[in-house]
């Protein structure tokens, strides 16, 4: 990369409201032995971490580690504290997430960490694929870190960054910003599953009335990195007419793709009241008498 290209790239990054939340491979390599940094891989492919990961990275599985094993909910604050302790994460540890699928699950894990009040978080821009494309090292060696004494928080911050079905309904009824980040076919109701994925048990197709369709993928470049702040502004601020102080709710099928958009809106564009409706379409599309709209609606 030429010096001018590097400069332009850094200027683009500087345009983000919270540019410090994104790191690149060089940053990771410079901080690999930093005891205050924990690199965390989180994937959709359950065995991908085992096939090779960034040296020193621990694995956090979105379902086994972050979700309650019985009820559809997240783990308790006590279980989260245990998860952090065993992975050598202290309250002042900077957690850097990365993973497959352009960081869907990395953003989901980051969002879940925020639910428990862990705010020192970052994303490896471009995720696992970019790391591999740059021919950076991978290892199968699983690291072990000294256990920490991560304190158990008194509550989850559900009310700050998470939306429930009744709140999504209110958002719809009050015509407040509601962003559906699924594919156009899922939004219109033409299909009831993601392209290339099995049906995940939803009975009805379509979208929440008055939702704006902005597929998550519009926020990323071909290499999985986030688009520039200018491009993101055009997509969300202009496309969805979002106002800086508005309450915004994002959703998808189970909350992972919408975590990606939640990350973009919260950190890269600086919206302060963004909540992820993680019940998403697998809840809404099965709920008796939940209002549904069909057909395309684009910004």
């Amino acid at each position, binding site marked *: 990369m030429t010096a001018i290209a590097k400069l332009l790239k850094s200027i683009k990054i500087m345009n983000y409201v919270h540019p410090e939340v994104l790191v690149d491979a060089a940053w990771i390599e410079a901080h690999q032995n930093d005891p205050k940094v924990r690199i965390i891989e989180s994937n*959709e*492919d*359950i*065995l991908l971490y*085992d*096939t090779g990961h960034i040296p020193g990275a621990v694995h956090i599985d979105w379902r086994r580690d972050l979700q309650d094993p019985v009820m559809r909910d997240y783990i308790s604050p006590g279980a989260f504290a245990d998860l952090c302790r065993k992975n050598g994460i202290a309250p002042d540890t900077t957690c850097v997430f990365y993973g497959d699928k352009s960081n869907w699950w990395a953003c989901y894990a980051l969002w879940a960490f925020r639910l428990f009040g862990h705010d020192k978080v970052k994303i490896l821009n471009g995720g696992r694929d970019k790391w591999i494309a740059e021919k950076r090292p991978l290892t199968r060696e699983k690291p072990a870190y000294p256990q920490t004494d991560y304190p158990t928080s008194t509550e989850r911050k559900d009310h700050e960054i998470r939306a429930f079905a009744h709140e999504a309904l209110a958002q719809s009824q009050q015509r407040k910003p509601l962003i559906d980040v699924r594919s156009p076919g899922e939004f219109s109701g033409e299909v009831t*599953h993601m392209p*290339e*994925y099995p049906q995940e*048990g939803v009975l009805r197709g379509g979208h929440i009335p008055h939702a704006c369709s902005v597929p998550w993928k519009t926020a990323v470049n071909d290499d999985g990195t986030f688009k520039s702040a200018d491009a993101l502004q055009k997509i969300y601020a202009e496309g969805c007419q979002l106002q800086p102080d508005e309450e915004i709710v994002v959703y998808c099928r189970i909350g992972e793709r919408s975590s990606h958009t939640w990350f973009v809106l919260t950190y890269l564009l600086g919206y302060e009241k963004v909540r992820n409706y993680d019940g998403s379409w697998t809840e809404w599309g099965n709920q008796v008498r939940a209002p549904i709209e069909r057909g395309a609606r684009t910004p």
Partner: protein
Amino acid sequence: MRCSDIPTNPAPSQYPSKLQQIVDFFEGLSEEDKRENLIVYSDGARRCEPKADEAFDLEDIRKDEECTDTVGVFLRVDPEGKAHFRLTLGPQVQTLTKAMTAILCKGLEGTTPQEVLAIPSDFVPRIVGGELIRVRSQTTYYILSRMKGICKVWLDRQRLKSVD
């Protein structure tokens, strides 16, 4: 059918012997050992690809909605009626699906197309274990369905030939 015809205690699933050996091996493993062995199998998925000098009776290469990338299934049935499979996988195919490809390639080697069609899919959780079976890992069943699909086409064609 009368009620008395309905079997009340169905016999345990029967798999081809090579597949049964793999099932038995995995069933005795801890979750951690299952993961490690699945990785070993997924690493071996490339060995299931067709060799340069091989010829096949049927080839079925396509990208379906159920799978994240292209999967190619190649079938040769020898004069004794035994099936021999080769498979190709696109780079986006998930690790568990790669592992299942290698397992099925090995486990179904030398079975007849009729036997392949009769295989129940309940061996998948017995190999993979409860921890790794999720809605989004259902594509592990996809490889078996594709292998069954190509066997069905081969049998249909044999039937047509016999009618001619």
